[in-house]
C-alpha cells in the first residue's frame, strides 16, 4: 500500500465526512468503524490508531462535522435517517438542485448500462436472469438505475415460478436514442429470441431442478464458512441487522 503518498493523517471528522460523501447509502456508525478498523489494520503503523476508534468517538466526530458544516455554510448537512447518517444538501438550496437535475437529462450512460439496455431492447420482454446470462454479471444495480432513468420499465410479471418481472424499454428510450421503432435497430431479427422467454425458461427449469437445488446448498455452506474472523464478522452481522 502506498503510504508514501499519504503524508497527512486525517482526523476522525474528515474521515467521517469523506465516508458519508462517498457512500451510496446512509451509513451507520458501525459501518464507519468497520472501514476504520480495516484501514487501520491494513496500513498499520500510525494508522493503527484508527482501528481503535470507539463508537462514541465516531459519534462525537459526526456531531462536530454537523456543527462545522453548518458554520461553514457549505450547502451541506448531515442527517440521521432511520438510524443511519447521510450527507445531504441544505433544504433551502433544493429549488436550485432541482433546476439543475431536471435540465440534466443529457445523461451519459456507462458501458454496463448501455450493454444492459441493448439486451433489454433486443430481447424484450425479458427477465433479469436472462440479461445476467448474457452479460455474465449481476445487473441488479444497473437495471435499477435504468428504471430510475425511465429507460427501462417493468412490462408485467411472467408466468414462470416465482413470477419474476419482465422488462422492456420505454418511450423515453426511443426518444433518447432517436429510434423510431425497436425493430429499426440493426440486426434486430438476428438478435431477437426465437422463442418467447417464458416457454424457453419453462423448458429449462423442469429439466434443471436438481442441479439448482445443489447450487443453493453450495451457496449456503459457503456463507457459513465465511464466518471466520470473529470480531469483524460480528461487526458485519450487526451492520446487516441494523440495516434491515
Amino acid at each position: 500500500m502506498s503510504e508514501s503518498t499519504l503524508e497527512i493523517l486525517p482526523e476522525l471528522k474528515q474521515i467521517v465526512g469523506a465516508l458519508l460523501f462517498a457512500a451510496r447509502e446512509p451509513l451507520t456508525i458501525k459501518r464507519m468503524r468497520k472501514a476504520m478498523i480495516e484501514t487501520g489494520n491494513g496500513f498499520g503503523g500510525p494508522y493503527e490508531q484508527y482501528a481503535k476508534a470507539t463508537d462514541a468517538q465516531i459519534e462525537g466526530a459526526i456531531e462536530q462535522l454537523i456543527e462545522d458544516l453548518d458554520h461553514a455554510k457549505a450547502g451541506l448537512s448531515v442527517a440521521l435517517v432511520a438510524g443511519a447518517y447521510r450527507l445531504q444538501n441544505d433544504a433551502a438550496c433544493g429549488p436550485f438542485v432541482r433546476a439543475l437535475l431536471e435540465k440534466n437529462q443529457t445523461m451519459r450512460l456507462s458501458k454496463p448500462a448501455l450493454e444492459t439496455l441493448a439486451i433489454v431492447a433486443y430481447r424484450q420482454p425479458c427477465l433479469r436472469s436472462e440479461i445476467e446470462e448474457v452479460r455474465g454479471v449481476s445487473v441488479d444495480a444497473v437495471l435499477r438505475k435504468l428504471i430510475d432513468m425511465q429507460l427501462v420499465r417493468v412490462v408485467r410479471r411472467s408466468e414462470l415460478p416465482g413470477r419474476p418481472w419482465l422488462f422492456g424499454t420505454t418511450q423515453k428510450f426511443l426518444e433518447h436514442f432517436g429510434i423510431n421503432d425497436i425493430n429499426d435497430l440493426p440486426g434486430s431479427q438476428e438478435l431477437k429470441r426465437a422463442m418467447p422467454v417464458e416457454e424457453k425458461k419453462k423448458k429449462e427449469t423442469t429439466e434443471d431442478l436438481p442441479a439448482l437445488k445443489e447450487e443453493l446448498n453450495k451457496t449456503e455452506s459457503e456463507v457459513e464458512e465465511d464466518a471466520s474472523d470473529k470480531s469483524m464478522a460480528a461487526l458485519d452481522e450487526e451492520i446487516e441487522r441494523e440495516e434491515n
Partner: protein
Amino acid sequence: MELIKDDYKVSLEVFEGPLDLLLYLIKKDEVDIYDIPIGRITDQYMEYLRLMKVLDLNIAGDFIVMSATLMLIKSRMLLPVEEQKADQDEDEEDPRWDLVRQLVEYKKFKDAADHLEDLELHMENVFARESEHVELGAPPDVDLKDASIFDLISALNEALGRVQEEDLQEIFAEEYTVGQKVTFIVENLKVVSRMCVSDLFGGMTSRQEIVCTFLAVLELIKLNKIACVQDDPFSPIMVEPREPDPVPTLPPEEEEVPHPEFELDDESAEVEEDLGDDDEFDDEDEL
C-alpha cells in the same frame, strides 16, 4: 536453452525499450548523459541483450536496431580525429549527439510519465459523488511496479556470474522446470513474507536452475501473484506476495450489489405502480 517452454516466453514489448535500457545503464554507472563512454555502455548493452536471449525473451527488433546504432557510433568514435572530420561536415558534431538528443528528449517524457503516475496514485484516493471515480476497466499490464526489468536481469546476471565455471551441469537436462520453481517461490513466500531476489538463487549451482527460477519470477509477476519492490534505485530487489485480487474482471459499476435478489422485485413493484400513475399525471400536466 531450448528447454524452456513457449508458455513461459515473456514478451518484452510490455516492458521497457532500448532507450530505457540505455538510461538505466547511464544511471547505474553514474555517467554524464552528455558524455557517454560509448565503448563501455555498448559492451554493457550487448551483455543485457545476450542475457535476454538466454532467457528467450521475445526481444523486440528495436533492441537490435539500437545495438547496431551503438556499434556504429562506437566505430566512428574509434576513428582518428582528422578522419572523423574528413568523414563529416565541418560543423558536424560528436557522433553521439543524435543519440544523446534522443535520450534527453525521452528522459523528459519519462519524467512526465512519472508525474502522471503520481497523479494517478493521488486520484486513487479521490472519489467524486456516487463514488464514481474514474476507473480503468482494463486488466493490468505485465507491470513491474517498482523495480524495472533491467534491475531483475542485473540480479540474474550476478547469480549467473557466481556459477560461471560450472557449465558442465547443463549436460543433465530437464532437471528443473519453470513450473517447479513457480511452486517453490509461492511456497517460500508463504513462510517468509518478503525475500531478496538474490536469495532466491542462493545455493543454486546450475545455470538452468537459475534461469528457470528467474522465469518463474517473471511469470508470477505477470500473473499478479508477486510484486518486485525496490526501496532505492539499485538496492536489492525484494519479492513480495500480492494480495489476492478480490473481483478481478467485474466492471466498476457493478462491484457493489448490496442487496441481492428480492430487493429489485420490491422496487420494481413500486416502479410499476408509479408508471401506472405516471401516465395519468402526464396527461394532466399537458392539459
